[in-house]
């Protein structure tokens, strides 16, 4: 079991309230003691050391920090850590199993859906939320579902192809 919190010293300890939260991340149950103002993205990156969730802006526009909370895509820089108390978080590190990539991960490589890789985890998590709900999306569906995520490298065309590639693979797997 891991306990994670910011050590602010004795003096600060009295001034700063600490909240204990319980949550699961990528299937693993955790307890953390956090400042109420701690952002979920910082809990994930710094507290839990899961650095695949990136932070690109301060205004919920870029989507690099997208994770799933109870299955819904959430920009983790705009949610407080205390808000995930009792909830389930999935990050990019939870996509693959030890031996097998998620079809989205394969799709992004196959269709050259990434270049610098910084937006990629957020893109895949937003795409996963789409495919969870809609296994057979159109190009337009994909573009709309990813419209909260910015990419500066690819021009999106190959990202869209990557998601459609993954959707096709997931459908063939479930049909098989």
């Amino acid at each position, binding site marked *: 079991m891991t306990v994670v919190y*910011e*050590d*602010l010293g004795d003096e*600060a300890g009295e001034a700063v309230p600490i909240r204990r939260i319980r949550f699961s991340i990528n299937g693993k149950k955790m307890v953390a003691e956090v400042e109420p103002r701690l952002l979920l993205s910082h809990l994930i990156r710094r507290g839990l*050391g899961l650095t*695949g969730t*990136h932070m690109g802006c*301060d205004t919920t526009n870029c989507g690099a920090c997208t994770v799933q909370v109870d299955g819904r895509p959430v920009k983790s820089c705009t949610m407080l850590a205390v808000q995930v108390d009792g909830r389930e978080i999935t990050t990019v590190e939870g*996509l693959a199993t030890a031996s097998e990539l998620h079809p989205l991960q394969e799709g992004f490589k196959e269709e*050259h859906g990434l270049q610098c890789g910084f937006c990629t985890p957020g893109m895949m998590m937003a795409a996963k939320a789409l495919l969870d709900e809609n296994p057979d999306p159109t190009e337009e569906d994909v573009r709309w579902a990813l419209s909260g995520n910015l990419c500066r490298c690819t021009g999106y065309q190959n990202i869209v192809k990557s998601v459609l590639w993954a959707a096709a693979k997931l459908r063939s797997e479930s049909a098989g």
Partner: protein
Amino acid sequence: MTQALDEIKIGGLGASRKRVEDDRFIRGKGNYTDDITLPGMLHMEILRSPLAHARIKSIDASKAWDIPGVHLVLTGEMMATRNLAWMPTLSYDTQAVLATDKVRFQGQEVACVIADDPYIAKDACEAIDVDYEPLPVIVNPKQSVADGAPVIRDDKENQPDNVIYTWEVGDAAGTDRAFEQADKVSRLQLHYPRSHPSPIECCGSIADFNRATSKLTVYMTTQAPHIIRAAVALVAELPEHMIRIISPDIGGGFGNKVPVYPGYVCSILASILLECPVKWIEDKTGNLISTGFARDVYLDGEMALRNDGKILGVRMRCDADHGAFFSDAQPSKFKLGLIHSAFAAYDIPVAHLMARGTYTNKAPGGVAYRCSFRVTEAMFFQERMVQAAADDLGMDQAEFRRMNFVRDDDFPHRTPLGFLTDSGQYGKCLDVALEAVGYENFRKQQQEARAKGRLLGLGISTMTEPLGAGNSREYDILGIKMFDSAELKVHMTGKAIVRTGARGQGQGHETTWAQIVAHELGIPAEDIVVEEGDTDTAPFGMGTYASRSTPVAGAAVAMVSRKIRAKARKLAAHLLEVSEEDIEWELGRFYVRSAPDRGVTIQECAMAAYSNMPDGMEPGLENTAYYDPPNLTWPFAVYIVTVEVDPATGVWDVLTTVAVDDCGVRINPMIVEGQIMGGLTEAYAMANMQFITFDAEGNCIGSNYMDYLLPTAWETPGFELHSEVVTPCPHHPIGAKGIGECAAVGGPAAFVNAVIDALSGTGVRNIDMPLLPDRVWEAITYHRDISGAPPVRTDD
């Protein structure tokens, strides 16, 4: 009988090999600067000026020092005692690290706090009390040169006004004569607005000074680690061998991560003072308001024309707004980058260009944002001017361009502003693009739509840009010649490692450099690992920007492979017991000319280099090559965009985007296409939405992603790419040319030309970028040009 290797199968030249780097990125296992945590690491935050121009009366940091968890507060005064309040820029100017006397732009660094945690550091920044006395603010070059304008850089001696430089190139008298002989003169004035490269990852650094070893290690978001090492050695007066710059994975650069920023310097000083690692990670607002912007140039040009369409001469005046510090990252001989590459694709007998740079109360920068040093402004003006001239003559857009193109047999071609273009098939590229877009048919549709009140438009843009600086005769930064390097070590089992002086930020170097080695040596690409970005291990190079990696570092990879092959040939001769002259090479294998079945593979040669070398031969199979290119490479492209403009709202939709890029030999076609699509998206962004402006008080409008609009998957159009025209670069070892920026450079004019074309007949000749709906609506409704900013002439 042996069978020759299939180059595509081993991942050689021309293979669309899947990217090696993807394996970590798709798992969330990239290693970006902010992902690194060192034991005992503290965190730094910067306090920035809220005002664009003000005298600092006092700074009271006592409340910040009192906050538990704060270890250090740095101010300009403290920096000054260590001679670090100012630092040199890459353009021979100085820039404040932390302000001492005045702040000169909104967002300028005033103080910084180092604390246990970034939250505490941010709290402490807010507790610092700065007393400012506001000063008059200058936000454009016209104000900079107005009578009585306050002198922004009163810190400098011999700087009586706000003019940084005046610079000219070309033949003024000859150009005057051409204009005297012209049947017609076309003129166009426009403003290329300020923009920001804005990679999603902001800038940052982790400085780690080890008192025990006296070694300074800095992990940082830099596209040019070796330049940074040199700069740190000079600025901080540290011995260069005790500085190690590591550029880990970079979340996009686009020129933004070339300069030296105050945050890097402060984190280094803090680490030295506190003797522990100090991490600084910029927030997005800090990135947008203080780090290297791009563009912000007023362009005014004239074209002397003959009635038959021949261009007789060109005049250009450029007025550049550099912000408060002249910190452009560019070759030192040229004041406004390679702006004089304008019109290089056209056979124009004579030209003259004047440029002036001024200080304003805006952030410094002038970085090459997906651009080879101001060529984006050059190509944009060129193609807007060409469209205006064709319209003025009543000529067809495509035919006007074709008749003035440099012809295929005219290379190498000396441009009137001094460049030597190397090769190209300009007419053929245009033909492919016109065919792809269905040019004649579209023109008919356009007329029919017009009759029904619908506004369709087609815009053509062509570009050839100088990519791959040096040569070292003409190109240097701060006197350091612009060559690049590669080191290749072949291990005894025939596996290998390549290191270069470049530093990729998504361009796929880890994949493509291995492909060049595979092409040269026949070692399968999967047997070759590529490493970049660590100054302790990589050979010295100038880094990755201005599309110079493939033209320069990529060439070095080919050249070092050839050195290895030359040694392997001697080893093969020894193994085969024949003389070197009797040996032939095929991919991956040497064989005896008279007995082709007798041969040895490159892997066998590698083993021999460590286990069975001939007497007198130095063991090992390793080498380094420094490549000083004989010339820049000159890719060419034609971009054609069609749009429909809604006259009621001014909104325009892209119907088709066709790109025909001739970048010579393509190492990895998949990656090349990815680069082109990325560039087209930035072109669309520039034309449609992406700009940073300032109000009269110098407040930056565009300081976050709510105000600085970047296109998403929803609005970005689809692209049709064509690769059938290939003109190998005559002087590059594998015939490649730069490609990373072409579409961002040449693309914007295609979008703008399309919208202006849709408005043909209304008298509208120009709308400044971005073509926001309100601007387009105003142009349509009032039949007038729309200027994004007040026009400024250098001779005003």
